[in-house]
Each structure stands twice: as C-alpha cells, then as structure tokens.
C-alpha cells in the first residue's frame, strides 16, 4: 500500500511538472560578432493532442 501511494505521488508530481505551469514561447536572436542581426519569435509547442486542445480552449 505504501509503494502504491509513492507511485501515485510520483505520477502526480510528473503530471504537474510536464503538463502545468507557464509555457514559454521560444525566441532567438541571430548574432554575428556580438551584433544582433535578426530577431525571431518562435512558437513551438510539443504536446499530446488532449493537452493541446485544453490549452487552445483557454
């Protein structure tokens, strides 16, 4: 029973780690010789379909 509780706790912890919180969109500044030449805003999301659908609904 104790082992089962620990497994639930670990699963719950990983669920919160991987599927909650603020998602930061990637951004990149392309530089040559310390001079910023081009700024790119990237919105790259890797998620399962259910998680993506929930997020898009908000």
């Amino acid at each position, binding site marked *: 029973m104790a082992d089962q509780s620990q497994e639930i706790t670990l699963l719950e912890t990983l669920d919160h780690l991987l599927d909650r*919180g*603020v998602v930061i*969109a990637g951004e990149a500044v392309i530089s040559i010789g310390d001079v910023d030449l081009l700024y790119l805003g990237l919105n790259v999301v890797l998620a399962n379909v259910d998680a993506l659908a929930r997020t898009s609904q908000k």
Partner: protein
Amino acid sequence: MKSVVIGAHLQRDDVEPIAVAIPVSGLFLSAVAIADDRPLGDRDLLLQVADVRARLLDRATFVAIRYGFAVHDAREAETKCASRAPQWRALLLAHRDEVEMTLKVAASAPAPRPDRHDFTSGADYLRALHASASTADIDQEFREAVEGTIVPLATSHRWSHRDRSSLELSMLVPRSDLEKMRAAGEKLRSQFPKVPFLLSGPWPLEVFADDHQQ
C-alpha cells in the same frame, strides 16, 4: 552548459542555494544546470527537477514554468522572459502566502472516446476528441460535499475537465490552512469511500499562473 528553468521567484533567497538563480527584470528564475548534450527527457533529470521544485516550494511560492524551457545564459533568459516579469511579479506579490492544491475526481460516467473511423476529416475527429473530454461529470452528491467542505478553505478555485474520465478542482489555499485542507480530504474519503479521488499538493502557481493577464 544549459539551465533547465523551474520557476519564477520574487527574491534570490527564495532560490539559492537550492537551485541556480538567474536574474530577469528584477525577478529570479530558478534553474538546474546540465550539460548541453543531456536530453531533457532523461529520467534522472526529471526526478531531480521534481525534487528541486518541491524544495523550492517549501521555501516560498513561485510561478511554475512548464518543464522543457532551458536557457544558456542570463541574457537569453531576459530576452525570453522580460515581457512576462510584470505579470509574474503581480502574481507573486498577490499569492506569496498561498499554494495550489488539486483535487482529481473520477467521472461517474466516463465519456466514450470517439472512434476515428466515424470521421471523414482529422479536424472533425480532433474536435470530437476535445468535446468528449468536456462532458465528463462527477457524482453530484460528492461535488456538493466538496463545495461545502474543501472549497470554503480555498481563496480561489476552478473546476476543469482534463480528460474523458475525470474532473479536476484547482484551488489556491493559504499555507496556514494546508492541514485543514488535508483533514477535509480525509473526511471526504470516509464519507465517500466509493468515489475515487486524489487530493494533492501543495503545488506552485500553475493553473493560477494564468491570472492577472495583461
């Protein structure tokens, strides 16, 4: 080296020496430094970050950043996070003494998963999948008991559908009321032994990190 970011904090002391503190617009990101070639999917790294996350929350409430965001230096962190700093600061000041708790409840009648063969387009199938996740409901008597026992202990709460088989209640709870919340959970368990549910926490600001949108 790169830094796997865990959260956004009000003070440097909220982060160090548990994790690396990266200054961003007057706030501090907590992070774990790893080798550039170490994959973020590494099991031991995940467990390490989960452990650090829990220890940081013991220190002070923070805004959780979803796992997978990594930066190479403070300049990159500033570039990617500066625009969010005012919102995070407002959240951290407003909820300094609160944490999140989560109550997951199994649906009384889980919604069936749509069969992809019933759809002619992928878009329709995805929409049906999403819709099916929003129809699950829980035992009404249990829900009323939750509203009468657990919810009053929260300063804010919201119900949400996360999948076809459960409903989730996210709550903001004063740290001083965590024991009362757990006791209320135990009382619910004795009152409703046949309703599968899981009361978990404390967690950092995750669901409520979307508040104070600018």
